[in-house]
C-alpha cells in the first residue's frame, strides 16, 4: 500500500510540476465563446464561467498546492527540528521554555489566525505573494504540534547511553545534537512531515472555499473548489467535482503513506 501511495503521489507531483507541458492550455487563457462549456474533446473537464479550460487550471492548481503545501510542511518540521535540538542542547529550562511556547501556539486557533492574517493582505496583493504568505503562515504557525513530539524524542535520545558516552568523550553540545541526536529523530520528523502536508492541503482548500485562498487568476485546488458552492452547477456539470476528487485522492495517499510508515516503525 505504501509503495502504491508513494507512486501515486510522485506521479501527481510530476504531472503538476510539469504543468507547462501536461496542461493543454495556459491557466488564464480564455475561450470567450465557450463559457461554462460541457466536457468535450477539446476541453476534457469543460470550461469555467470565464471560459477557461478546467483541466489546465486543475493541473496548474496542483502545481501550486503540491509544491507549496509540502514546502510549508517542511518549514514547520525544520522549525520543530531546530527547537527539538535546541531543547536537547539547552537543558531543562530551555526545554520548558520551548514546550511553553509550543503550548501557547497550540492554544491559539490556527485556522482563525490564518483566516485573519490572510484577510488582512492588501487588496492589490498579487496571487503569488498571497500564496507565499499563506503557506508561510502555515509553516510559521504549525510548528508547535511536530515540536512537541520531536522535543520528546530528542529528550529521550539525549538521555541514552550513546549520548552519555559521547559526552564522556568530550564532544560538544552542538556536535552531540547534530551527529548523535538529529539522525535518530529524522524518522519522527519524516512522519510529522507526512502528517502536516495533507493537513496544510486541506487548510488551503477550506480557505479557498471561504474565498480567502489564492486570489484569481492563479488557480489552486482550494480556489477551484469555489465552484462547488452552487448545487445547480454540480448537478449540471458533475465534472466540476474533479478538483475535490483529486484533493481527496492525494490526501488519502498521504494518509496511506503515514499509516504504512507507522506500521513499519
Amino acid at each position, binding site marked *: 500500500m505504501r509503495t502504491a501511495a508513494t507512486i501515486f503521489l510522485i506521479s501527481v507531483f510530476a504531472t503538476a510540476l510539469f504543468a507547462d507541458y501536461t496542461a493543454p492550455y495556459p491557466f488564464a487563457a480564455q475561450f470567450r465563446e465557450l463559457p461554462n462549456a460541457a466536457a468535450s474533446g477539446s476541453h476534457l473537464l469543460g470550461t469555467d464561467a470565464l471560459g477557461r479550460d478546467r483541466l489546465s487550471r486543475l493541473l496548474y492548481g496542483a502545481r501550486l498546492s503540491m509544491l507549496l503545501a509540502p514546502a510549508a510542511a517542511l518549514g514547520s518540521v525544520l522549525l520543530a527540528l531546530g527547537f527539538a535540538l535546541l531543547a536537547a542542547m539547552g537543558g531543562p529550562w530551555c526545554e520548558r521554555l520551548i514546550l511553553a511556547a509550543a503550548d*501557547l501556539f*497550540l492554544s491559539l486557533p490556527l485556522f482563525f489566525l490564518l483566516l485573519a492574517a490572510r*484577510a488582512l493582505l492588501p487588496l492589490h496583493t498579487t496571487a503569488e505573494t498571497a500564496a507565499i504568505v499563506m503557506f508561510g503562515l502555515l509553516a510559521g504557525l504549525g510548528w508547535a504540534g511536530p515540536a512537541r513530539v520531536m522535543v520528546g524524542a530528542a529528550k529521550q535520545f539525549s538521555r541514552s547511553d550513546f549520548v552519555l558516552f559521547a559526552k564522556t568523550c568530550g564532544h560538544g553540545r552542538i556536535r552531540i545534537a547534530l551527529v548523535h541526536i538529529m539522525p535518530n529523530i529524522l524518522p519522527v520528523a519524516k512522519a510529522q512531515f507526512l502528517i502536516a502536508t495533507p493537513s496544510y492541503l486541506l487548510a488551503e482548500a477550506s480557505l479557498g472555499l471561504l474565498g480567502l485562498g489564492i486570489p484569481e487568476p492563479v488557480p489552486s485546488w482550494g480556489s477551484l473548489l469555489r465552484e462547488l458552492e452552487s448545487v445547480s452547477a454540480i448537478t449540471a456539470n458533475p465534472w466540476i467535482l474533479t478538483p475535490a476528487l483529486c484533493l481527496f485522492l492525494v490526501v488519502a495517499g498521504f494518509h496511506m503513506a503515514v499509516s504504512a510508515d507507522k506500521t513499519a516503525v
Partner: protein
Amino acid sequence: MTPRASRFPHLLAVICRRLIWFMVVLLVGGLVGAVLVRVAPGFGTDERMLDARLSNASIQAIARERSGGADIGWYYVDYLGRLLRGDLGTSVSLGRPVRELLGERMGTSVRSAGLGLALAWTLALAVIGLLELCRNPAGETLASVIVEVLLCIPVALLAVGCFYLGGAPALAVAAILFPRIFRYGRALARQTGAAPHVLAAHASGESPWRILGFHVMLPIFPELAALAGVTVNMAVGAIIPVEALCDSPGVGALVWQAALARDLPVLVNVTLLVTAVTLASNFAADVARNARWDAI
C-alpha cells in the same frame, strides 16, 4: 495530618499555577492575535478607499479611522483596561458594540457546536460499542473506510455538503468531529478489548454487554474524557467555516465577516474568547487524562 489533608496545599499550588498559566497564555494569545492583525500588510486599508467617487478628504478620514489601532502596544494596554471594565470596544465594520454582537451570536454558535458534539459523540460511541460487540471484520472495514473518507475531505467542503443535504450547522460539525472521535476511541477500545482480563471475562462467560460496559468502556473513560476536552477545541475550529458557509448567524460567521472587513476590535476579542475556550478545554482534558488531581 491525613494523606488527603497533606495533599490539599499541593493541589492548591497546582490549581494556582494552572490559573497563572491560563492568564499568561490568554494575555499573550490576545497580543499575538492583535500583533498578527496589526503587522499584516493590509492593516489600515479599507475597500471604501478604492471608491473613485470619494473625495481625498473622505479617503483621508477613512484612513484616520482605520489607523486607530496603529500603535499595537498602546492599543492592547488600552483594550485590556477597557476589558476589565466590561467594554469590548465597537466593531469598525458593523458600528455596534462587540459585546452586543458576541452576546447575540454566542447562543447560535454554542447550540451548533454543542449539538454537533453531542451528535458526533453519540454516533461514535454507538458505532464503537456495536463493533466491539459484533467483532465483525466487514463492519470494521466499512467503518474504517467511511472514517478515512471523511478525514480526507476539507472541513469547508463537508460543511457545504451538509448544507446541500438540508442539514443544520450542527450536522456539519458532527460530520467533522465524528471521524476524529471514532478513530481514537476505536483504537482505545480495540486495545482494551484485547487485554487479558477482557479475554478472561469472555472465557468465564460474562455477558457481552457487561464486558463492554465494565471491562472495555469504563477503563478507557479517562482517555475518552480527555478526548472530549480536545473535541471542544476541534468544534471551535470547525464552527468558523461551518457558519460562514451554512449562513448561520453565529460567532463563526462574525469572525469571517470581521476578517473580510479587517475589523480589529472584533478579531482581537474573538481571539481572546476562542483562546480562553481552548485553554479551558485543554485544562479539562489534562484533568481527565490524569484522572487524579494530585497527578496534574
